[in-house]
């Protein structure tokens, strides 16, 4: 195969993996700050432990594979994986939980498939799902928002003690609370208004704290969109489908019909998923139409699993299922080439 070689002068595009990844890290700042304010220092503790671990793991595997270590570490992709995993895990998760998740993400999901750009599944989500199906108890222990349970969110010292497993079980129980999505699923006979009145976890329209976290990630996502790190298709598809599903099924009052569309948009991992996970350039479909379709299917799946599934949130499972489907979606949305029938066959 010969590649056409245009003559100089060439325009050098400023985009690079490292630049993209640094943008992603920067864009996660608002959400990270919201998480810290609303749920305490736990997420930062997760992050402080996950990042060196991910970088160390990446370096060790690259070294074992005889690949250039310094350049690959410089592209910050392992940093982003650790960041997304640390955000997705419950604040002040036990240190071994973070460690297992990070090793599964970097070692198994990324490097066993060939490293950056080769992995069919989003590494951070693989790490999350491995933990969720292995340690359901630890993975569903969320800190109560804005100190709704015990008066104050955990400070740096308490979060650190929680991560090291030094907190007494009673104190840990006092700090944690069911998430709004859990409450909605467990109280199918109540009205949404009753739930709102009886539980401090429900805020103005999303969950207390959750609405700020989601707003933070929305802001970060819009920044990334402005920076053209990704196109609008995947997030629009996911959020649009989620709103559509929630609107179709919500009857305006009962908890059994799921929450309102606004509630679904601003609770759980919706915005994080829409702007930081389904937009992963490696594991999403390559075509824009494919991204729109895959995003929409993620949105539908998120609603289905939230409503009728057994897990606290659904973004990780939905994204992984769509990662499976990405090659098929890309194949199906191929535009017809002029002079050919559909699917590349002669007419």
């Amino acid at each position, binding site marked *: 195969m010969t590649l056409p070689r245009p003559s100089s002068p060439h325009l050098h595009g400023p985009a690079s993996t490292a630049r993209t990844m640094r943008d992603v890290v920067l864009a996660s700042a608002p959400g990270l700050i919201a998480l810290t304010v609303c749920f305490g220092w736990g997420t930062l503790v997760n992050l402080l432990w996950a990042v060196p671990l991910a970088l160390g793991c990446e370096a060790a595997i690259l070294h074992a594979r005889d690949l250039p270590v310094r350049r690959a570490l410089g592209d910050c992709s392992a940093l982003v994986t650790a960041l997304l995993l640390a955000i997705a895990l419950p604040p002040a998760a036990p240190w071994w939980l973070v460690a*297992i998740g990070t090793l599964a993400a970097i070692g198994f999901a990324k490097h066993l498939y060939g490293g950056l750009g080769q992995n069919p599944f989003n590494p951070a989500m693989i790490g999350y799902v491995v933990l969720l*199906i*292995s340690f359901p108890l630890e993975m569903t222990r969320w800190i109560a928002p804005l100190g709704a349970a015990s008066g104050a969110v955990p400070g740096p010292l308490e979060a650190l003690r929680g991560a090291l497993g030094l907190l007494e079980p009673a104190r840990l129980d006092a700090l944690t609370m069911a998430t709004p999505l859990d409450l909605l699923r467990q109280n199918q006979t109540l009205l949404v208004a009753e739930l709102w009145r009886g539980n401090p976890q429900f805020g103005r329209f999303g969950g207390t704290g959750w609405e700020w976290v989601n707003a933070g990630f929305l802001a970060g996502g819009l920044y990334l969109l402005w920076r053209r790190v990704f196109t609008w298709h995947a997030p629009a598809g996911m959020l649009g489908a989620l709103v559509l599903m929630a609107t179709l099924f919500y009857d305006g009052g009962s908890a059994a019909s799921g929450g309102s569309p606004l509630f679904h948009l601003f609770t759980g991992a919706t915005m994080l998923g829409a702007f930081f996970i389904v937009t992963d350039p490696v594991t999403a479909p390559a075509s824009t139409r494919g991204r729109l379709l895959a995003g929409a299917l993620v949105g539908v799946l998120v609603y289905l699993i939230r409503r009728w599934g057994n897990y606290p949130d659904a973004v990780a499972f939905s994204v992984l299922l769509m990662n499976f489907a990405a090659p098929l979606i890309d194949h199906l949305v191929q535009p017809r080439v002029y002079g050919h029938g559909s699917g590349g066959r002669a007419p």
Partner: protein
Amino acid sequence: MNDDRYAQVLRDGLWRNNGALVQLLGLCPLLAVSGSVVNALGMGLATIVVLATTSTLVASVRNTVPNAIRLPVFVLIIASSVTVVELLMQALAYGMYEVLGIFLPLITTNCLVLGRAEAFASRNPVAISAFEGMMMGSGFAATLIVLGALRELFGNGTLFAGMDLLFGPAAAAWEVRPFGEYKHFLLAVLPPGAFIFTGLLIAAKNGIDARLQERRARAAAPAAPPGSKRVRVTGHIG
């Protein structure tokens, strides 16, 4: 010469042509009942007995069975020996029989059994076929046990739990807890764990093979004479 042949069958069955790790046959029982050492051991023993008996029987009738109907005949022989093993296990180790459940009669459909009958026993004398069946079964059982041990260790933090199912009440005390208090790593005992650990075992076997070959090649070929003019044109990048 004859000893050589046996040695080769032994090497093939246990390592070089291992039924589970190289031929990738019989994956269904391998993945389904390798959750603990005791299950793996029960399944492994049953498979060894079935493989040895079918290989012996198939080899002894190989000259009288017309080629056109050999497969149904082999399957009948396999199904009969599986039934015998199943009844034996029901009589001698009922607890184990209960645990293995449907996977015990399903040995009939284990590709490894039919594969060895077709590829080896139908073309070789009785004695070496019986030995071959036993070695193939042992290789399969060994893989199964290693896999069972890994999954039990990572999943439950125990080793040799529930051995009383096979060896009587005294064996209940064989259970080892190397980690003491252990958080159950459920993924290892769930189906995905079976796939992941099998993949790791295959990778480990290939890695060991590659290292052995490298060492053998280095031992066989003396270092290049000094002053060689050959230039290395390939190598590591970066």
